[in-house]
């Protein structure tokens, strides 16, 4: 359990440090079960920070969204750290980025949160529709979520609202952090991400039918890319015109190319935060692609992304002793 008082105190202390520019965390959203990314530039700003099982958003995407304005003559770049509130998967995203040299450890101060899993915003909004005021959710020790709406208290079994990716999470505690809020969660036995098995059991034709049904709805808003902490290329291949890998026409063929290429580009890099799937406005089950690739990478090369900053990235490493059972 994360005590908000303790979180605010830590954020206040962090943002007051001379070497910290600002701290990113969560604040309450404008309606329903929405949360907002919050940016604290002063101890005062830290007061609105909070943490609850609603805080699904992976904030690791923000340090790389920093816009560095061109410097005037004689001006020097400011080398200050960004503080970020991170759950297990968010911390792994930062590790992965550091591994790839997108960031340096010195660039960030990680405020770790031992995570008990987050609520799927789509599931809870469906269960309790039409909430025009913010509703917070707490978790008790009996694997239940507790929320109060219009004076009535509701107790919901955790399993019904928990994000699918969290059910199969192996790393609820941040593997990398500077400050940890509360006590580390006990390691629990994760469930298998069975949505991938269900797909694998289908015939090729059925599988294609399934993806066709989803990809034809893709509107190519690129929310999956923008929400993803690991999609941080300065110029995405989807935006290139010369050569043009993917046409701008929105149709099944190009949409498939986009979604499959994105999944490939995340091979051995995706840390399973589920942000792409959560952001997708047309309900494409993107984590099924990512989890499938993750499984392949694990089975063939015994590699897990985002665990150690010193490790070499998956596609930049060669280990003569990896399983390689697929080579006959």
């Amino acid at each position, binding site marked *: 359990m994360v005590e908000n008082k303790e979180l605010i105190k830590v954020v206040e202390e962090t943002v007051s440090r001379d070497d910290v520019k600002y701290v990113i965390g969560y604040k309450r959203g*404008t309606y329903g079960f929405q949360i907002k990314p919050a940016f604290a530039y002063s101890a005062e700003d830290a007061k609105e920070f909070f943490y609850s099982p609603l805080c699904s958003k992976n904030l690791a995407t923000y340090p790389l969204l920093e816009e560095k304005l061109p410097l005037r003559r004689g001006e020097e770049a400011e080398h200050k750290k960004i503080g970020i509130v991170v759950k297990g998967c968010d911390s792994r995203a930062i590790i992965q980025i550091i591994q790839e040299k997108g960031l340096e450890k010195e660039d960030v101060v990680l405020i770790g949160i031992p995570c008990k899993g987050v609520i799927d915003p789509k599931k809870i909004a469906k269960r309790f529709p039409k909430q025009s005021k913010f509703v917070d959710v707490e978790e008790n020790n009996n694997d239940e979520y507790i929320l109060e709406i219009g004076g009535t208290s509701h107790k919901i079994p955790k399993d019904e609202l928990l994000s699918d990716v969290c059910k199969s999470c192996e790393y609820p505690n941040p593997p990398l952090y500077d400050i940890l809020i509360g006590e580390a969660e006990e390691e629990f036995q994760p469930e298998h991400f069975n949505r991938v098995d269900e797909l694998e059991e289908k015939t090729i034709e059925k599988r294609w039918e399934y993806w066709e*049904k989803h990809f034809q709805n893709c509107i190519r*808003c690129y929310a999956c890319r923008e929400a993803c902490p690991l999609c941080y290329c300065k110029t995405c291949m989807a935006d290139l015109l010369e050569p043009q890998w993917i046409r701008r026409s*929105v149709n099944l063929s190009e949409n498939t190319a986009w979604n499959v290429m994105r999944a490939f580009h995340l091979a051995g890099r995706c840390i399973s935060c589920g942000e792409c799937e959560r952001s997708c406005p*047309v309900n494409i089950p993107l984590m099924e692609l990512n989890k499938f690739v993750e499984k392949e990478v694990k089975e063939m090369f015994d590699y897990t992304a985002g665990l150690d900053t010193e490790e070499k990235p998956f596609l930049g490493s060669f280990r003569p002793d990896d399983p390689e059972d697929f080579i006959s």
Partner: protein
Amino acid sequence: MEQLTLPKEKLPELLGEIGSKFELIGPKEENGFLAFRKINDPKEVNLDILLSRVPPKSLIFQQTETLFTYAKGKDSKIQTPKIDESVRVIFGIRPCDARGYDIIDPVFMGKKEGDYTDPFYTKKRNRSILIGLSCNEPDTNCFCTSFDDSPANSKHVDILFTDIGGTYFVEIVTEKGEDLIKNLSKIFSKATEKEGTIRKETEKTAIKAISRKMNTEGAVEKLNKMFEHEFWIEAARSCIGCGICTYLCPTCHCFDMQDESTLKLGGRVRVWDSCMYEEYTHHASGHNPRPSRMNRVRNRVYHKFNYFPKNDGIFGCTGCGRCIDYCPVNIDIIEVIDKVKEVNV
């Protein structure tokens, strides 16, 4: 305006008849959300979900429109696709989405005689007969009433259906609507005065159910004075730069032109574009007049709440609430406008 009624159980019969005579488009559930699709069987129509995920602007201002195609070589000829001009009925469109068409019509169809009209948009718009459906149960982020609109406004459709419990109250609004009804068998009855009263009460109840309100009073003038204000840096800080708010907006209408070719064939396509993308204003020179997210978020707000009112005398927002519903970081346009009004300039 002719006022009729139709028992609810007769709706499939009506849709079946429309579908047999014309192309019928309607709201259909697909992968857990609503989409406007061709209706082959009246059973496919879903009227339980309020709004389609992608607004029906996509039926007229298509996400991908092929403007012309060509073949390479000696006999190469440019071919323009023939645009279907036969009548098409769009059933179940909500008043706010229909209003979206009215807002972007001047962009593609011109404001006065002699203005350029885009043939693709114009022909699709003209061939469409809109049968609207009033919203009896507005959703969390509906705020159409903030723009003097109503969840049962008949002004933007040709025919409006309002569910008055067991029966649809049917208002024939335009000549186009009248012509359509004339073409159909006589399954409608004349509405009684009592039914008219129930319809009005239903509208009142729906209006009351709208809990969110955007206070637009003075917003245009305030925005005139705060273009350079640091408020915009704050407002855009959490924006991740995806295109959801613009692609799901019934009034966003920006597009990009692309030439797409293979070795032998090619074509020019018009595809949706979004001012939320860095690439949107990226010049060939390398310069970008909107280099940061602050510039881009500011542009979206200004276009809807300053440029649109100044150019066309109307806000570029229908209050459908989609941008609020689907923003991954809860950038809430109602809150943005509220905060604009609080800014000291």
